[in-house]
């Protein structure tokens, strides 16, 4: 009886349900904080590492062995060496990953190189390109194994490989979305998924061991018989190419470190750094067991199964051919587990990278200017994560469809390894070499990846598929040294070795060279220091128990800062105070606080705090780094403050220049306006003069009356011109400050009387002028003629513009604390508020009115009053026109004798 495809699908579904259930239970237990010992045991950690063993290793290793003998084992040797050598690389990697809270390998690399998102995007894209074929490979293996069962039923079973692949992909996407994006905690741990893959790890190991045991003891008849059979087979002798042996070991070791899914389980899902040392022997054991029966199965498969059957499926076909249906089903589940666990974790890791480094930045950019970012970012992240998961699985499915499920499993796996291995120089350089720079990493990654594409991925599609035969034989662009399998004209290398050697070595060279030549920015340097010195102040002791805050570490640091004897004295004193024998006190909060204060005296509070926090907390920057950073930041601060100062000076200068320029422009505008005004004022009377003089000259038939009239117009216009010129001259003299003041002394009332008399006698106005007398006359000590000029101007303005029936002007002088004010208020309509600001401008005439003045009177008054040390202003709040003349105290002379010698002029001067 054979296992029907439907039964198999049923078993498969039951298994999936089982995985869902344990994942769900694990999630719930983790949420409730129960079974932590199980959920996060070293065993689970080790088993979760087994996602390294994918369907490629489950099915493919046997096929690989059947084709090329022992070479397959290199795929396990590399990771075993890395695990056994945990102390060298993984210890650092895990420490850094936890310290930096790295969420993915892209995150870690970008974080090392100054948190550069460009780098993160590059790594993410490379990882997606490198891993997508691998995901396709897993789908293919599941479909192949299903097809094997289907084939047993003969024709008409209705098995559709594409459909099967689609449903598998859908199921995996669902699982990953469900358990990979349930929560969004900081450290990106996924208990459900880890437990599920641990369970799957057990299933695949048991399955492979069961098939192996069946083959060795059931089919071959015991261990020695099996070995004999092996020696007799066509792969019975050691015939591995040395170059491939080394290259593949290196490649698998590199991939073990660089694969996004390995980083996920090894670093991100790591709970306790101590587990790493357990896994250092436990995981090689797992790998050893996984590879133990590979050769026997391959050899027996080659013997028993018909010629031409696919060696990749020996694990399945051997039990089936012996009608061991239960074993075959178990074997199928093993393969299924390998495939699914890999896809789930790889997708999870990739989706974290894609959503964190590509989708979210894009989303945030698009959102700029939109609504404020509220708390729904978490939701967006989860959605982005889910979207990325679907996207990546869809990519894998599409790749599967496109590639048509062709190619040996192992080949695709190696290619994928080659792609992710390109991260190695940037990764190791980043954690061991402080001089590694972002540009170096970018250049190295770019070059290595380009070479990988050209020598490994593209040729893998076959001649004339993506690269033309022309390119294969004569190189890219016809350049002979750019042949994809013989770069630089070096021929005869195995294509894989060729690709690995060239891509990794040139990657490394480029990375080193560019790093040496470029200069990292401060964040990069700080991160570099943190990464490289992650263990310096913790050491192995703190690696196991981070809580043992080393008094010794504190001591070492204090000695560096305070000096040896000073530090020891301080520590001894503290130890004595605590009652602790010896010279190291317990690191109690009090002691640490005291130490911090002590250190603060030397290096400043902030630095001291940071330093102590370094050692007491478990973050990891060495004291030298801190000092270096402090120095650097001090330098930078100084430099930037210098810059700031300079730029401030510059901007001040610029502002001054701008102001000067504005002033000049304004002056120039004023000058233009002034000239234009003068032109107008001069040309207008001249027009009348010219016109009428021409009329007088040319017209013979004028009456005497007309002649007289026109001559008088010419005369008055000439007077107007003269007055204008006088005013202009006056103003110019006043403005240029060339005016000499002729100081004299006289009583205020006399001065007012002079002005009033001049205006009233000279004009024909009906203006009544009242002077409000002061009790005591004030004696002025100023240029009296100029002051009279101002008063005359104000009075005649009133006379001109006060248009009431009985125009009246009241002049009221008043002594104040600071000097003397004289108000001129008439009963006219006054000046409109919007005009009050401009009446002192040159050539301004109220209401655009005509007059014989040029509009310079008030401007002249203002200039005069300024010369006299006082001022003139328009008084608001009066009905009529109201001006106030102000004279300072210095312009007043309190000469009593003088004052008594004169009788105050108390006169109302009026003229009708």
């Amino acid at each position, binding site marked *: 009886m054979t296992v029907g495809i439907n039964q198999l699908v049923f078993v498969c579904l039951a298994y999936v349900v089982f995985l869902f259930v344990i994942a769900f239970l694990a999630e719930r237990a983790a949420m409730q904080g129960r079974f932590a010992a199980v959920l996060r045991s070293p065993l689970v950690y080790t088993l979760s590492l087994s996602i390294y063993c994918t369907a490629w290793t489950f099915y493919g290793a046997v096929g690989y062995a059947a084709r090329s003998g*022992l070479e397959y084992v290199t795929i396990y040797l590399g990771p075993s060496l890395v695990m056994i050598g945990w102390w060298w690389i993984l210890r650092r990697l895990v420490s850094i990953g936890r310290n930096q809270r790295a969420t993915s390998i892209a995150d870690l690399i970008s974080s090392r190189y100054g948190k550069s998102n460009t780098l993160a995007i590059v790594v993410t894209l490379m990882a997606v390109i490198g891993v997508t074929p691998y995901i396709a490979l897993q789908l293919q293996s599941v479909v192949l194994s299903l097809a094997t069962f289907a084939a047993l039923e003969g024709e008409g079973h209705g098995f559709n490989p594409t459909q099967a692949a689609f449903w598998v992909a859908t199921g995996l996407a669902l699982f990953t979305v469900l358990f990979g994006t349930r929560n969004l905690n900081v450290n990106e741990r996924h208990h459900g998924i880890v437990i599920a893959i641990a369970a799957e790890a057990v299933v695949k190991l048991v399955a492979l061991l069961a098939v192996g045991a069946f083959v060795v003891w059931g089919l071959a008849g015991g261990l020695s018989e099996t070995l004999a059979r092996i*020696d007799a087979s066509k792969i019975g002798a050691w015939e*591995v190419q040395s170059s491939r042996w080394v290259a593949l070991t290196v490649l698998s070791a590199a991939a073990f470190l660089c694969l996004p899914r390995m980083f996920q389980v090894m670093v991100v899902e790591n709970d306790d750094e*101590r587990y790493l040392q357990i896994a250092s022997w436990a995981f090689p054991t797992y790998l050893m067991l996984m590879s133990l029966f590979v050769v026997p199965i391959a050899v027996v498969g080659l013997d028993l199964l018909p010629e031409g059957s696919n060696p990749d499926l020996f694990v399945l076909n051997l039990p089936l051919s012996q009608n061991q249906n239960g074993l075959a089903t178990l074997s199928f589940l093993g393969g299924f587990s390998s495939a699914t666990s890999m896809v789930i974790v790889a997708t999870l890791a990739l989706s974290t990278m894609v959503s964190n480094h590509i989708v979210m930045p894009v989303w945030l950019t698009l959102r700029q200017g939109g609504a404020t970012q509220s708390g729904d970012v978490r939701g967006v992240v989860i959605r982005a994560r889910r979207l990325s998961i679907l996207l990546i699985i869809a990519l894998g499915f599409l790749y599967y469809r496109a590639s048509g499920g062709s190619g040996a499993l192992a080949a695709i796996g190696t290619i994928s390894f080659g792609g992710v291995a390109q991260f190695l120089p940037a990764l190791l350089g980043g954690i061991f070499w402080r001089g590694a720079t972002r540009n170096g990493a970018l250049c190295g990654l770019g070059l290595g990846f380009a070479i990988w594409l050209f020598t490994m991925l593209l040729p893998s599609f076959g001649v004339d598929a993506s690269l033309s035969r022309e390119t294969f034989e004569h190189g890219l662009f016809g350049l002979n040294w750019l042949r994809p399998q013989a770069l630089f004209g070096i021929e005869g290398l195995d294509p894989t070795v060729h690709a690995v050697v060239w891509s990794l070595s040139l990657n490394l060279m480029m990375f080193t060279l560019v790093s040496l030549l470029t200069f990292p920015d401060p964040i990069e340097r700080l991160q570099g220091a943190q990464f490289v010195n992650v263990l310096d102040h913790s050491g192995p002791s703190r690696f196991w128990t981070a809580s043992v805050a080393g008094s010794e570490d504190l001591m070492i640091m204090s000695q560096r800062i305070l000096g*040896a004897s000073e530090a020891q004295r301080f520590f001894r004193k503290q130890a004595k105070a605590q009652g602790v024998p010896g010279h190291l006190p317990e690191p109690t909060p009090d002691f640490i606080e005291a130490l911090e204060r002590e250190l603060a005296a030397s290096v400043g509070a902030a630095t001291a705090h940071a330093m102590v926090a370094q050692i007491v907390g478990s973050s990891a920057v060495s004291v030298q780094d801190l000092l270096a950073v402090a120095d650097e930041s001090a330098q930078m601060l100084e430099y930037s403050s210098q810059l700031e100062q300079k730029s401030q000076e510059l901007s001040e200068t610029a502002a001054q220049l701008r102001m000067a320029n504005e002033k000049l422009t304004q002056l120039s505008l004023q000058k233009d306006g002034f000239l234009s005004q003068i032109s107008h004022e001069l040309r207008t009377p001249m027009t009348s003069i010219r016109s009428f003089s021409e009329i007088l000259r040319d017209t013979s038939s004028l009456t005497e009356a007309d002649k007289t009239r026109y001559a008088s117009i010419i005369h008055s216009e000439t007077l107007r011109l003269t007055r204008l010129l006088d005013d202009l001259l006056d103003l110019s003299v006043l403005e240029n400050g060339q005016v000499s003041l002729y100081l004299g002394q006289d009583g205020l009332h006399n001065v007012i009387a002079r002005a009033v008399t001049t205006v009233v006698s000279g004009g024909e106005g009906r203006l009544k002028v009242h002077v409000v007398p002061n009790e005591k006359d004030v004696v002025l000590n100023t240029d009296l003629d100029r002051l009279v000029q101002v008063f005359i101007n104000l009075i005649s303005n009133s006379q001109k513009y006060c248009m009431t029936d009985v125009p009246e002007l009241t002049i009221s002088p008043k002594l104040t604390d600071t000097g003397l004010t004289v108000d001129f208020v008439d009963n006219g309509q006054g000046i409109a508020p919007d005009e009050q600001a401009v009446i002192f401008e040159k050539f301004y005439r109220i209401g655009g009115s005509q007059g014989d003045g040029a509009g310079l009177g008030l401007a002249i008054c203002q200039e005069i009053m300024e010369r006299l040390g006082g001022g003139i202003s328009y008084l608001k709040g009066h009905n009529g026109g109201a001006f106030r003349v102000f004279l300072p105290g210095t312009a007043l002379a309190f000469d009593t004798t003088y004052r008594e010698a004169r009788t105050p002029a108390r006169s109302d001067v009026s003229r009708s």
Partner: protein
Amino acid sequence: MPMADRPVFLERRSYRLRRMMDAVRFLPFLGLALWMVPLLWPLPAAEVAKNGIPMSTALRYLFCVWLMLVISGWLLWRKTRVQHPSEPANAQDTVE
């Protein structure tokens, strides 16, 4: 760092521990060296007279190395895990 900062003589147990950690650090290189031994094996194509190294021998050799490494790793873990907290800063130990 001046020598005076650290004791010249350690107690026996600490000394032993440090040597264990040295062994931990050394182990991967041993593994690498042993696993690269097959590179020295003759290939059947090169020397037709001898038939090369039989597969069974190769298998036995590789897996023995593997087993040895795993057991060494386990033993070293047993030896070093408990006492580690008391061991002084080991990173500086390498400077000795």
